[in-house]
């Protein structure tokens, strides 16, 4: 069975090699003529102010990230459960039901609390 995954790693190697090849090829044939004006970050021609990556984002992005983590993890439980649900029968269903309901409680809380509202 581990052999099934070997192609995965081969593929990674192939793609990286391919990209490297394309990049090198391009490097060989393209012009290279940088100067400070050209190298400035894109800002519609205006001089830019401050660091872009200073971490000053709308807080909603973080909220989304946190919610994502929670639900993504739930997916992790759901998949194996879905595979064997037939064998587990009602008990398995009820267990997952409780799990999902608990999550929904949290989700409802976040919703009502306004965590999902993008425009405040």
């Amino acid at each position, binding site marked *: 069975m581990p052999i099934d995954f070997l192609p995965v790693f081969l593929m990674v190697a192939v793609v990286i090699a391919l990209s490297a090849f394309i990049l090198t090829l391009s490097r060989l044939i393209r012009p290279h003529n940088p100067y400070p004006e050209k190298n400035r970050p894109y800002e519609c021609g205006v001089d830019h102010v401050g660091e872009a990556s200073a971490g000053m984002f709308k807080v909603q992005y973080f909220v989304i990230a946190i919610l994502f983590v929670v639900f993504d993890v739930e997916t992790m439980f759901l998949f194996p459960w879905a595979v064997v649900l037939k064998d587990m029968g009602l*008990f398995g269903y009820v267990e997952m039901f409780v799990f999902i309901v*608990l999550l929904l*409680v*949290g989700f*409802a*809380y976040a919703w*009502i*609390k306004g965590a999902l509202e993008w425009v405040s």
Partner: protein
Amino acid sequence: MDLTQITSSVLASGPEIIIILGACVALMLSLVPRPGQGALLAGLSLVMIALAAAMSLTLAQNPQTAYGGMFVNDGFSTFFKMLLYLGTALTILISDRYLGTEDAAKGEYYVLLLFALSGAMIMVSGKDLLIIYVGLELQALSIYVLVGFLTTNTRSNEAALKYVILGAFSSGLLLFGLSLLYGLTGTTQLEAMGEALDSVETSSPLLALATVFLIVGLLFKVGAVPFHMWVPDIYEGAPSPVTGFMSTVGKVAAVAVILRLLIQDLAMLDPIWRGSVEAVAVLTLAAGSFAALVQTNIKRMLAYSSIAHGGFLLLGLLAGGSEGLASVMLYLLIFTVTNLGLFAVIVLLNRGAGQGENIQDFSGLAKSQPGVALMALVFLLSLAGIPPTGGFFAKFYVLVALVDAGFVLLAVFAVLLSAIAAWFYLRVIMLMYMEQNDQPAVFQVSPAIGWALIVTFTGTVLTGVLPAWFLGVSKAAATAGLG
């Protein structure tokens, strides 16, 4: 699993389910803002705790394991659960006022408290390393958030972040130990693990490594030296009631796990950890007592004091046997009551925005608030272990267990260091009774805190004057735990 097993399992975890349901209901209620919401949620939480306590007591009639041996209801867990209920209830009582003065009244507070409580309960009842770990994290995660509950207060945020990082770090250590133990035994179920370990040589390096990681992870949670550096910062930064909660409920649960693992089910690891834990215990006592001498913030001082008390608990653990176990349990009971009492006083002194947490703020208290000062005096004396307060019997019983088990030298260390520890409790007493204060603390004791004070004060005095009943209970629980 057939249906009867499922029902009995669900029944066995009834108290946990009640608390979690309560938390969910409270969560939903907290979404509907309205006047008196705090009181409503606090009341609801208290009712839920009372229900759970009643259920626990009922379940204690016939000890049983549930969920395929992963969860247990025995005298041991019932005792600890009662402690957890008590600690949480007291915390709830002292919280309302604090949230008011700090302007942080939000319904989620009680929800988180209940979740933390349920996590702690699962820890106490867990009979499987995985379950214990899950409970521990449930409790820890809730407490992380509680520590940072004062969202606009930088101290609180910082404390929370530090706590998350170090808490996760210690969980990592614990987990690593868990994974190695699993590899060695092929199970995480404690009893099976114990049986499997019987055939493993204790000199096996892998086992030693596993034990060390497991114990270090747990000692982190208790705040034993040299894994204590997080305690003062976090105790100082956290909201006062939460600090009280952490130092009691959090500690109770962690100690319960340690006892469950080290004395009960994995007792065969004893030769591996004994030596180092002895050193840790003495160091913990010493470092806690000495560091507390120079503190100026009362919560920081209590943090170190709580470290020192952790050292005493470890001594009880070292004494081992049913006596040692019982001594730790009694100690925790008395410590919970006393410490939360003192935190009630701290909450009373709070003037918002973290003001009123300096030790100096206690000065002149005896003049402006003689009643509260008297209670604080008793709590402090109890923490110092001066009779006739409960603290004396707590320490005394640990000493009895130690001497009984033949660790006289450790006992001598313990008493000498507790003499040093008395110094900083005395300092607070001195401030209260012997110093003048131009701006004496002015406050009204709210009914909730009043009740908390009455309960803790009575508890402290009662355990000091008539400890027989409490002793008997903890001894019975300890015997049940070992049986």
